[in-house]
């Protein structure tokens, strides 16, 4: 039996004017049928690009330069245009961040649901409309018959995200990629929408890749977790293992930054420094300039994912010290003083 989704050594590059930018650098993970995985990391870590790479829809000038995306055993990035089109929105659906921007303003909600079905199934418009109605009921939209004929601007943000979820589910996909589905919503509505998405995925045995900044949500919704930093996965494994006992210094920082865990009144923890831009990723471990455990090897050799306890971690220190990190105290402030060359490698530039 194949995995539902298997991403192998994925590399995504953007062919920019001044050279190639590697946005995703050797990302790999697997997902089983009905399994839910969280993909977390700072802004710009490459979460969305990974999501789009799965359905081979990276915006120009990006492209998959290495690796494979296997979906039910088929290599998606080697399929024909038509075969790939028939998987998108049918077997794999996406949910975007901002429901205010995701729906086409000049087409009715009904049209936008029905067209998805008609693009993938040989059924009549009436039959498609009936399915659409069922799905609107499923996402708890009141008086769905009337709502089908309305335009997106006649709905609130939360309602629109429900509709987007209904569109994503309209073809009963095996996998949903949700890219920060609640970030743009009111805090009060966020939990509601997340709850709905979780329930529906559970009920339909739908796999979910949940892209988010929010570790609290991840621990409620997902079974697996992958933490990304500057285009690579730095830690992956079972969600509860990682959240309760993070191994990678970056993951530790993320978890300690969660407001819920610290005592009220004390200062919010922050990881010092910022994530490097992709044009100036430091040599060695990309996290080393911000890492309190940084040693000499971290500055020269990029670490690879290696098993530690029941999860995988890409960190020299975790590997050598067997999970017991001792701060080395050398938190230098690393200055991005590098430029891209045509080959995409970051090199030191001398002088300004």
């Amino acid at each position, binding site marked *: 039996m194949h995995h539902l989704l298997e991403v192998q050594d994925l590399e995504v590059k953007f062919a920019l004017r001044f050279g190639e930018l590697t946005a995703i650098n050797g990302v790999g993970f697997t997902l089983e049928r009905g399994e839910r995985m969280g993909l977390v990391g700072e802004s710009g870590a490459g979460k969305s690009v990974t999501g789009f790479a799965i359905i081979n*829809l990276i*915006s120009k000038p990006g492209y998959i330069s290495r690796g494979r995306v296997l979906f039910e055993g088929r290599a998606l990035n080697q399929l024909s245009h038509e075969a790939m089109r028939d998987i998108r*929105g049918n077997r794999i659906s996406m949910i*975007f961040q901002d429901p205010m921007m995701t*729906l*086409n303003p*000049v*087409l*009715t909600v009904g049209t936008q649901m029905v067209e998805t079905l008609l693009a993938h199934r040989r059924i009549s418009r009436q039959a498609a409309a009936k399915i659409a109605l069922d799905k609107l009921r499923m996402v708890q939209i009141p008086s769905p018959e009337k709502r089908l004929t309305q335009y997106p601007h006649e709905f609130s943000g939360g309602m629109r995200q429900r509709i*987007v979820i209904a569109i994503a589910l309209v073809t009963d996909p095996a996998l949903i990629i949700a890219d920060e589905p609640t970030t743009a919503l009111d805090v009060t509505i966020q939990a509601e929408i997340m709850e709905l998405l979780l329930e529906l995925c559970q009920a339909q045995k739908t796999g979910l890749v949940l892209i988010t900044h929010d570790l609290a949500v991840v621990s409620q919704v997902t079974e697996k977790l992958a933490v990304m930093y500057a285009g690579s996965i730095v830690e992956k494994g079972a969600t509860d293992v990682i959240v309760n006992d993070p191994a990678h210094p970056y993951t530790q920082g993320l978890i300690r930054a969660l407001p819920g865990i610290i005592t009220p009144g004390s200062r919010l923890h922050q990881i010092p420094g910022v994530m490097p831009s992709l044009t100036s990723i430091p040599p060695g471990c990309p996290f080393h300039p911000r890492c309190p455990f940084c040693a000499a090897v971290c500055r020269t050799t990029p670490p690879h994912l290696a098993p530690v306890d029941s999860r995988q971690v890409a960190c020299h220190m975790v590997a050598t010290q067997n999970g017991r990190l001792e701060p080395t105290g050398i938190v230098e402030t690393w200055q991005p003083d590098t430029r891209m060359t045509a080959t995409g490698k970051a090199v030191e530039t001398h002088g300004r």
Partner: protein
Amino acid sequence: MFAFIVRRIGQAVLVMLVISLVGFSIKNRIGDPVRDVVGERVTPAERAALRQKLGLNDPFLVQYVRFVENALKGDLGLSFFYKKPALKVIISKAPATLELVFVTALILIVVSLPIGVFTAIRPRNWFSRFTMAFSTLGVSIPVFLTAILLIYVFAVTLNWLPSYGRGLTVDIGGWQSGLLTLDGLKHLILPSISLASIMLPLFIRLIRAEMMEILETEYIKFAWAKGLRRSRIWFLHAFKNTLLPVITVFGVQIGIMFAFTILTETVFQWQGMGFMFLEAVERSDTSLLVAYLVVVGVIFVVVNTLVDIIYGLVNPTVRVAGRK
């Protein structure tokens, strides 16, 4: 929708009042209604008496109100040259201009939409690059040069098409139409192409720019992620959104096109309102000039109101705003 239309018509009335005020001021300052009525060979005493009788010594506002009242009754004064009501003269010339503008608008739509859309979805294609380069050039060629070039090539050298006049027309209830005879249509070709050439580059660029912007939006990305066929994404999802700003600009440009008919009609000896306007200027036929201004103003306002209503039909946001 109803409230929207009412509001739109209210604005139209306001615009017309402004136009009539400008028109009346021209007439009041430089026109000579006495001459329009009795010609130039009258004694000063008789003129003074007539001025009094025509109410020309009344205050400006009184005269303006009278002007508007008369205009509403369809009386825009007498043309000095034609010795006929100015409105009658214009109405007899209007079909020529309206048909020219109509055919030009048709050419604009039929040519610019497919080209604009194509260059947006295939920006790297050789045809797109060529069109973009050419349209930059096109913007900078003045209309009379295009017209003369067209006449030289197609009328003088190749002798394929007539270069002046309207050709054979058919009378349909007082409307002299050149659209129903082959000869009439042939005569329309060169003038309408010249007129269209002024705005064609603008429209191609506008449609292209709008379409490219729309293609980058989240909802188009979502449409791709839904696995829709690209024809549907391009020609329904993106196109319908592209149309909105294009419709607005189209409405304005149609109005501006009337200004350009003056040049085009003169070059092609086209017996329409534009040609008449230039003649009226030469003859200082003030009443006719002012009547022209008012009539073109009416056309402009009517076209824009229609365009806005069409916009409202395409754009669901406007429709609902009107419903409330």
